[in-house]
């Protein structure tokens, strides 16, 4: 294909070779005529925008999806991978982007599932226990084999997935965005393991969005764009800028342009906010935060440390059955933290906007048309209707404007949200929330699953809102995004604010330590600084 690929070819049979793979989901062409060659004993990176088709390609390799066309060679021999069983037998293991674990099974049960040794469980379990102990020592992958998976942290769940693959004696290990859920330290640990595996002669395919990781660990890298494989090159012979350009198809500005903040009066004040979920587990252990008009407060942290709960509580819909205490004030007015008065609709009336973390599950009704989604959450607004009835024309006019201003593609009001691409779905949510001109905007993972071009656009609009004197609370797991967008950074760990930093005064390493619960600069920790 490309010149780069030509140079990769060697005499020995490749561990994996894909030829002319295509796959469509209904009208969506997820993979188109893909060729890929991965050499034995190497780490091969795959990058590409969201929706580029990376996961689909790997799922085909693993027998989860069947390709519409194309051929797969494993170890030089053609193989029809009809199901995952075939892939496993061929020595392929995969750690999915969304883990495929049975939440209420123990680690051990999850490991042997599908790889049992006989009809009875007991022998399989005891054998697996032994193997697990050996693997744990060999690769520093410690997990309690008898712990129920839902009680494990995400990082540990990932370990279980890796152990599952190793238990099945995988020679070729596919990892789909493994570091998205890890702290920098955990990610480093994972990379050490991967290097160890490579040293043993195993082959690894690593999907990631993070160019830094590609440069750090891979031997070769392939770039996908809109379902096609646009390049395969040796990592040593390329650069992040070149990769980014290959990914998006044009030059990208990786930095946000913004002027220094001019914070005004406090908009949101949180004091001693505590929350225990329905099971009684403390998710927030005393949060103190202040956000002022005209500033962006970024909250960094590995997901699962209480950010979701914080956003939900502020958004007015704390988890069912949870117990809450503490104080929240908006524009100086105390807000109810629990009970019937604590309601998302009421919060919106008080001037709150909210771009939720999970747009597909929360921010949109996937089966509703775009125009209906523009009214979603504001369907009670007086301009959207008369009395109990809604005014479709008014809403549609409004929606058309928003769609045009936010360059949603295709610019169709009647298309169901499900049929927009992820980035455009996110634009609908962002348009709806930002154009309401809220005093306080909560943003969770604004650019998750959004292509680089749209990221630029969304970032610009967030900064504009700040410059209009609004307060913004930004939660993101992407450190780069936090660093470039925030005026002030708070790091959450285990339901607490571990510390606050100014973007100019900190490094990713420093933040990474905080995210792991280690405070390298204790002087700022106690009490948490409330004044900017």
């Amino acid at each position, binding site marked *: 294909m490309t010149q780069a690929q030509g140079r990769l070819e060697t005499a020995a049979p490749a561990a994996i070779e894909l030829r002319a793979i295509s796959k469509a*989901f209904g009208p969506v062409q997820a993979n188109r005529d893909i060729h890929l060659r991965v050499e034995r004993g190497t780490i091969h990176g795959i990058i590409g925008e969201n929706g580029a088709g990376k996961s689909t390609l790997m799922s085909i390799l693993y027998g989860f999806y069947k390709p519409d066309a194309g051929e797969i060679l494993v170890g030089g021999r053609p193989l029809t991978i009809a199901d*995952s069983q075939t892939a496993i037998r061929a020595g392929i293991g995969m750690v999915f982007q969304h883990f495929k674990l049975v*939440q209420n099974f123990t680690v051990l049960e999850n490991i042997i599932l599908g790889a049992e040794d006989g009809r009875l469980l007991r022998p399989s379990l005891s054998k697996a226990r032994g193997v697990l102990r050996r693997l744990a020592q060999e690769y520093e992958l410690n997990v309690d084999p008898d712990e129920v998976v839902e009680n494990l942290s995400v990082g540990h769940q990932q370990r279980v997935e890796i152990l599952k693959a190793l238990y099945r004696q995988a020679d070729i290990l596919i990892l789909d965005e493994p570091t998205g859920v890890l702290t920098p330290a955990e990610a480093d640990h994972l990379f050490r393991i991967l290097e160890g595996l490579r040293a043993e002669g195993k082959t690894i395919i690593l999907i990631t969005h993070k160019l830094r990781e590609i440069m750090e660990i891979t031997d070769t890298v392939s770039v996908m764009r809109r379902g096609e494989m646009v390049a395969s090159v040796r990592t040593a012979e390329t650069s992040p800028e070149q990769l980014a350009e290959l990914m998006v198809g044009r030059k990208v500005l990786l930095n946000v342009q913004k002027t220094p903040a001019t914070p005004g009066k406090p908009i949101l004040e949180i004091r001693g906010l505590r929350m225990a979920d329905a099971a009684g587990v403390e998710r927030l252990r005393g949060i103190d935060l202040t956000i002022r008009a005209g500033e962006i407060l970024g909250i960094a942290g590995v997901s699962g440390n209480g950010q979701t709960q914080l956003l939900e509580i502020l958004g007015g819909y704390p988890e069912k059955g949870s117990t809450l205490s503490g104080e929240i004030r908006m524009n100086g007015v105390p807000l109810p933290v629990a009970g019937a008065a604590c309601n998302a609709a009421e919060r919106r009336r008080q001037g709150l906007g909210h771009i939720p973390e999970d747009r597909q599950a929360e921010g949109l009704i996937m089966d509703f048309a775009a125009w209906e989604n523009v009214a979603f959450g504001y369907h009670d607004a007086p301009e959207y209707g008369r009395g109990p009835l809604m005014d479709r024309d008014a809403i549609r006019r409004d929606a058309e404007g928003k769609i045009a201003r936010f360059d949603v593609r295709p610019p169709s009001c009647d298309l169901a949200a499900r049929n927009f691409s992820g980035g455009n779905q996110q634009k609908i949510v962002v348009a709806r929330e930002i154009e309401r001109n809220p005093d306080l905007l909560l943003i969770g993972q604004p650019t998750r699953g959004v292509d680089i071009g749209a990221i630029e656009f969304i970032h610009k609009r967030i900064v504009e809102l700040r410059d209009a004197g609004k307060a913004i609370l930004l939660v993101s797991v992407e450190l780069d995004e936090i660093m470039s967008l925030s005026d002030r950074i708070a790091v959450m760990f285990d339901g607490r604010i571990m510390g606050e930093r100014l973007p100019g005064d900190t490094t990713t390493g420093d933040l990474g330590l905080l995210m792991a619960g280690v405070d390298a600069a204790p002087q700022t920790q106690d009490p948490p600084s409330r004044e900017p």
Partner: protein
Amino acid sequence: MDLNTVLQILDSAVRLMTPLLLACLAGLYSERAGVFDIGLEGKMLMAAFSAATVAALTGNVWLGAMAGLLGALMLSAVHGIASITFRGNQLISGVAINFLASGLTVLLGQKIFGLGGRTPSLTPGAELEAQVGPFRAWLSGIMGPDTAGWLTTTPRMTGITLPFAETLGNVPVIGPLYAEVISGHTILVYVAFLMVPLTWWVLYRTRFGLRLRAVGENPASVDTAGVSVTRLRFAAVAIAGLLCGLAGAYLATGLSAGFVKEMTAGRGFIALAALIFAKWRPWGALGATFLFGLLEAVANRYPNLDLGVITVPSMFMNALPYILTVIILAGFVGRAIPPRAGGEPYVKER
């Protein structure tokens, strides 16, 4: 209430709970594998009809029982094809199966026997003989009159007296308990009770059970482990069919002697409620169905419960199991968490 009364009520409860228990375990297999099943009622009815029909035509209850299993299995296949293969709505499929059974049984019954959907009574007599006669004659031609006669004179299940029931009967408390309550039921009662530990063992001690539970919690985990979700779910639905088949056969050939239209009378729904009450666990199923059986037995024994101040009318006593179900579901036994993938067809590609 003396000991004897208690024993009689318990004895009755055991009989009444047996079809519930079998149906409940049927639901358990199906729902543990992620396929909801409100068609238990229909499958039981179909099984009761098939069992009674074949027993009436052949004079052999074991052939009848086989037919019962087949009848229920057929409806299971419909449910499987609708909800697994074609990923249809499992509730709707269940509703359709209930209608189908209720119509087909009468239609076929009327066609075969012309008794308005009833089968002949399975007690030796002229009505039965008219049906069995030709079959016996035909069989005699093949294997001789003795064998044929022997094969065609067990139209319904009879109770089994367990060993030592007589001798132990004199031991206080335990003796009568053994002799009255435990001994003397038809074989399917013992099968039903043995199904409880067996189900527990299959579910928690075998590879099949592990996979079954996994497919009801997260089918993708099973799929990516290289095991077929479809095959597992079909197996579970088939087992559910077999158990419903036993329940139906017991109703028509064990507890009563013949089929009467709509004879399941809502037991499938009670079994479903018991399943939720049992939180989808085998031993829980035993406890829940025993409770329902006991309630009905008590209501039978005390049709107008005289509480001194007021007399509870029989209509209330008859509705008691339903009222109690609602009260139980209202969460007085804690929230029951169904299998997480329950009710959802497994869809890989949209």
